[in-house]
């Protein structure tokens, strides 16, 4: 169990992590956010590569800089270090200095992924390097594994195998895996919970069920004659976000495709947006359309970005 309490970190005069609070239990988490939102910084803070300015990080109720805790947590960066001229064998020896490596499993993974053990890592392609490091990360069997953009550049066959191994190892009740990625589609199926951060702050945290009631998407077609003045052809008002904002709706996005408008709003428990739009604007068509999980997460990030720019 990872508890992050009021975590703040300033880097180069910008606040990278801003009073962040998180509660992470077991399972596979997806960590999502824009570029520069603070995902890698968060990982570095969790693994004690950085020290926080304010706040606490408790892992299994102990501070994260203690040796026993550190040996149970591993952070795999998107471009990890390997010594010059080292082969996979050398790399394994290196990791064995710090962690317990399940060598049989590791060799099985290397064999299945067709990674040569005695060739220099510098001759590997980017995808092969990623595969090698993920294999190592999986074989050190730590309780807390943090993967930063680990799937980029890996071919679909290898990716399938890796996902299966991840499911085998990290969906137990006693381990935690956090994957930071921009590829929400591939994370969608693998993760049962998501953490969305933006500008160092937490936007949302939870599983599918808790996030699915946050936004609504409507398809709207207007009867333009209703909206025009009788004498001239001018519209009473323009169809833009302000139109809906005046109705006290929290607009996230408004897109026009031909004559159809797609409106996404954030849910407010007290009001019924369907009736408000119907009563005030009398549209020809007003239909709710489903949102995919992917869309929901992107919308969370967009909404947080807009919130942030409002405050500036």
């Amino acid at each position, binding site marked *: 169990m990872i508890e992050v309490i009021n975590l703040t970190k300033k880097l180069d005069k910008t606040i990278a992590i801003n009073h962040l609070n998180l509660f992470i239990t077991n399972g596979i988490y997806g960590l999502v956010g824009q570029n520069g939102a603070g995902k890698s910084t968060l990982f570095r803070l969790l693994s*004690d590569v950085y020290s926080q300015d304010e706040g606490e990080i408790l892992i299994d109720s102990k501070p994260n800089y203690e040796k026993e805790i550190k040996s149970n947590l*591993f952070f795999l960066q998107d471009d*990890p*270090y390997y*010594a010059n001229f080292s082969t996979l064998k050398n790399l394994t020896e290196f990791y064995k*200095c*710090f962690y317990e490596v399940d060598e049989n499993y590791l060799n099985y993974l290397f064999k299945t992924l067709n990674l040569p053990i005695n060739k220099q890592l510098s001759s590997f392609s980017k995808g092969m390097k990623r595969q090698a490091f993920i294999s190592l990360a999986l074989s050190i069997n730590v309780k807390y594994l943090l993967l930063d953009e680990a799937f980029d550049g890996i071919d679909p066959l290898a990716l399938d195998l890796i996902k299966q191994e991840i499911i085998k190892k990290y969906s137990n009740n006693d381990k935690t895996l956090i994957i930071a990625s921009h590829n929400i589609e591939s994370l969608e199926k693998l993760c049962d919970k998501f953490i969305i951060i933006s500008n160092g702050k937490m936007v949302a945290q939870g599983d599918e069920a808790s996030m699915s009631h946050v936004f609504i998407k409507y398809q709207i077609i207007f009867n333009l004659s209703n909206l025009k003045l009788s004498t001239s052809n001018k519209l009473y008002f323009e169809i833009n976000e302000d139109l809906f904002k005046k109705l006290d709706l929290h607009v996230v996005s408004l897109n026009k495709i031909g004559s159809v408008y797609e409106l996404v709003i954030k849910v407010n428990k007290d009001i019924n947006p369907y009736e408000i739009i119907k009563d005030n604007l009398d549209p020809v068509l007003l239909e709710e359309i489903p949102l995919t999980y992917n869309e929901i997460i992107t919308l969370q990030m967009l909404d947080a970005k807009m919130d942030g720019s409002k405050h500036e």
Partner: protein
Amino acid sequence: MNKKYIKYQIKQWLPLIGIISGILIITLIIDLIFSKNPMNYHYYEASKSNVSYQNPLIITSCCILCLTFFVPLFVFSYKYSIKKADTYVQSPFKNNNLKITNFILGYLCLALPFIVIFLIGLLSTYITQLINNPYHVIVVPQNPGMTYYSHITFYYNYGYLILFMFFILFMLFIEYSLNSFAANFANNTIDALIYISLFFIFRMLILYAIPQYFMQNLDIIEYDFNIFNLSLTIMPVISFALTVFNSLISRGYFDAKDVFISDLYKYQYVGYVISFTFIIMIGIFAALYIFFIKDKYKENYGRKRNNTIFDYLLPHLTMMFIAFSLYTITRYDTTSKIVIFLAFFVMYYCLLASLNKSFKIKKYDLIFGGAISLVNFCLFIASITIEHLYL
């Protein structure tokens, strides 16, 4: 201490150990050739006794002290790149153990080859002495045209030489700690090299100045002008090792005791003793700092310069000392002084630019730098004025 990590790190540093050993072997060969060359001893014209003790391994000892410059670059390499830092700093070590393990291993990389090669050197001289015992050397006086021959017997006092070896190992630790102290504050290899150099120049200027002060108060400088004096300007540690400790060996077993102690009371040696004590003290402080103080700005590893006092004081204080020495120690004519004055500014700017990795100067650097440039300017004017008034 993690045994597997120690084994791994030694394996990684085998090339470094190889290079150090290689250099020491070369210096050993030079020493052994040199020690047999009578041209070296031409100043021992008329020796007080027929017996003289020499140090056959002086160059090897000086060399190992110079090699302490580079080893800290390897010891702290784990924080000189972002990727390395990410991997090493997250790994499970207790407290400062990573730093301490690397530090001790670095010292062993220097000390162990030195011990082996030093003992080989001693063994070699012992064997050659068994074969040609004693040396008969032709001594040539300083006046050309006049030669006379004298027989001087050279012996090597192995007891003192072993003692000398331990002395060098101790000074090795001190110099190594001081260089590591400087390298510890850096966040990349270039900065580390700059910090080590600056700290070295800083120490050298202070430690040179102290004995100079005492010696300039004497009307006659009593010691001969030889390689030992030259070493004064090269490295204070070596200078102490050579002038005091080596002279202990060269005096001969029975004379040594009296000469050494009576020499120490001589005014000129007070300076050496002060320098020596100073350097030992800061060396021990440096070692303790490395052992016990944790790094504060881990996020700067592999990135930019820290904001600690050391990072600001070191370059500026050293430049201030350089400014002082430029006009007090040297004797140049006015044109050269102008050139030196301008060169000082250029050097200062280049130093700050390479530390900050940008052409803009930071605020604190500007304040300190401005003050020291002003000092430089005043000294420049003062030294020209003095020259014009008194010459």
